[in-house]
């Protein structure tokens, strides 16, 4: 579950301008909070409390509600992600084909636990539920690209391909 980030917030004025445009565009639509949070996460990469405060102020929605929504959904992250975001599928099809050990091995290779980011900010590791690539089980996704038919000995090579 998400916790408040301890990484200092370093949003740029450009990002803020972009966020304000998005808010303006969507604020009249019914139920706009979730789409706005999604766009905000696209802009900043995560949802630091500062960003949620801007959204709360502009939409006149209490912060507790914004926070309630941002912590409810697994898509939203209150912590920054790595430059390369690794999501290992622990959906049923992958699980029965041993994606659990793949997930563990990656943690071991990167020296982090699931949900964490390497100290240099390069890789973050998390489990996810079904990429819909069950035909390629066990599978993982790195920055939107799916790697399928994984085996333990392929992992180091895949990690090495990112510099």
């Amino acid at each position, binding site marked *: 579950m998400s916790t408040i980030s301890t990484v200092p917030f370093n949003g740029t004025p450009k990002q803020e301008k972009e966020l304000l445009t998005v808010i303006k565009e969507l604020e009249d639509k019914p139920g*706009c909070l979730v789409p706005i949070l999604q766009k905000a996460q696209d802009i900043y990469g995560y949802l630091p409390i500062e960003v949620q405060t801007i959204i709360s102020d502009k939409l006149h929605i209490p912060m507790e509600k914004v926070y309630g929504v941002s912590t409810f959904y697994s898509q*939203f992250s209150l912590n920054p992600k790595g430059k390369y975001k690794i999501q290992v599928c622990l959906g*049923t099809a992958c699980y*029965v*084909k041993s994606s659990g050990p793949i997930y563990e091995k990656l943690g071991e290779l990167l020296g982090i636990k699931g949900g964490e980011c390497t100290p240099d900010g390069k890789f973050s590791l998390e489990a996810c539920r079904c990429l819909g690539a069950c*035909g390629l*089980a066990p*599978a993982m996704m790195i920055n939107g690209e799916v790697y399928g038919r994984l085996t333990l000995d392929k992992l180091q090579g895949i990690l090495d391909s990112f510099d």
Partner: protein
Amino acid sequence: MYRSHVLVCGGTGCTSSGSLKVIDALNSEIKKNGLDDEVQVVETGCHGLCALGPIMMVYPEGTLYTRVSDKDVPEIVSEHLLKGRPVKRLIYDETVTDQGIRSLNETNFYKKQTRIALRNCGVINPENIEEYIGTGGYEALGKVLTTMTPDDVIKVLTDSGLRGRGGAGFPTGRKWMFAKGNKADQKYVCCNADEGDPGAFMDRSVLEGDPHVVLEGMAIAGYTIGSTQGYIYVRAEYPIAVQRLQIAIDQAHEYGMLGKNIFDTGFDFDIELRLGAGAFVCGEETALMHSIEGERGEPRPRPPFPAVKGLFGKPTILNNVETWANVPQIILKGADWFASMGTEKSKGTKVFALGGKINNTGLVEIPMGTTLREIIFDIGGGIPNGKKFKAAQTGGPSGGCISAENLDVPIDYDNLIAIGSMMGSGGLIVMDEDNCMVDIAKFFLEFTVDESCGKCSPCRIGTKRMLEYLTKITEGKATMEDLDKLEELCYAVKDNSLCALGQTAPNPVLSTMRYFKDEYIAHIRDKKCPAGVCKALIGFHIDKDKCRGCTMCARNCPADAISGSVKQPHVIDAQKCIKCGTCMDVCKFGAIYKE
């Protein structure tokens, strides 16, 4: 006119295997050979044979190439497209016979299938509305708007016997009738495309392969219940589906199939996409509607049902992607046609996503009443590596495991419930003798504990306590009394939870206890995991007779738990062993076993 069409699957499975590179290579190679006026490349949705992707189909002959890589493309173009000589080594084995190449429909994988919801998947270009119209698309909407009253539509649907394909199987006609009967200034039509069952991808394939069918079905519902606005709630994790839906909505507007005054009949209907933000509970209808409203996706007690008070407090109907995909065909071909397929209480077909330990992983659509044996062994090609079938899991975290003794039960909504599982959205995961059923139950419970929204305590606390019992069992620390308590707790959670998530969460536990109780007992009494999965209960050993002393295992052991001299049998120190299994993977002589 093109003399040949090359269809390449652009669904998620094939894209992950590199089909987009194949398409690029095809386009450039075709150009190089000056064939651009003669051969057209079409990116389609899913053919279903995901395990063999990327899939390529060459028409008019209908040659099916599997596992095509971009490196194969020059050969395909110069041999097949230029000289008319198919590249034999890439052709799907099953289509090759002594008499030449046979149709795909005669292969085991397709022979027993009947494709209604998937009828256009892999056949048309999903990003081109004209291809959809060319296969009869939007004809049903035209028929409804110009020749049928809302009551006519409801009658056809009711007579067809169509039931919700999202899992619960509520009769679709009746759902629409309730919503039509309620008066309001606005009503809503929603599509549940938040496919949350881990291990299911049929909705994704329909959205990626034939997005217009969903729009058409929803517009028909809009006319029937008197709504002008629809919402599609689709998973953000499905980027290709989201993109194609948006293209489809824009094109439908352009062609006047959505928007104002559709078909000049004065009927207005529009559809908006909403992206789900990752919450399994949002598959529950009231939770989904809260999420569209921008709230936390928590369910609420029913009644009032959404047909009375749904999205933004207005009468709403919500159907699943596959249900929508059936509607236009039923309108065009009639209730009798649809009702002629299936069993007494479950009509039509059902799409299943085959996954796990099965040869042909992929997507299949079969008439209701087909047996599990036919799906797994005839269509799915059986279990790989000569292993034995142990169980099939349907219904995802809400469903249960079906054992070998029920392989011949005809699949329909009611039969599956009777054997302790449920239809669910259509995930079908096959397990073999290497899967531990207690571990599988624990896997699903971990999922539900994670995904329980926390609103009601039976689900929030109950599932957590159930998981604790299961963990105790897999660690060999449980007693037989714990097993009884676990069972009692299952029924308490089932009976007292607010929504279907909690009410069905115990199903994986109850069904595995029903069919595989001996495995639970082995964990508890004998402190053994028969499948060799539960780490706390297994140990790794070296067979002295098989070990050649190559030192491979010792060098690779991360815990330095293996010792021995060169060319002498090695030994594993159980105290140091972390049971990672690396030694077993690296041993070339099969000398390491677990027990």
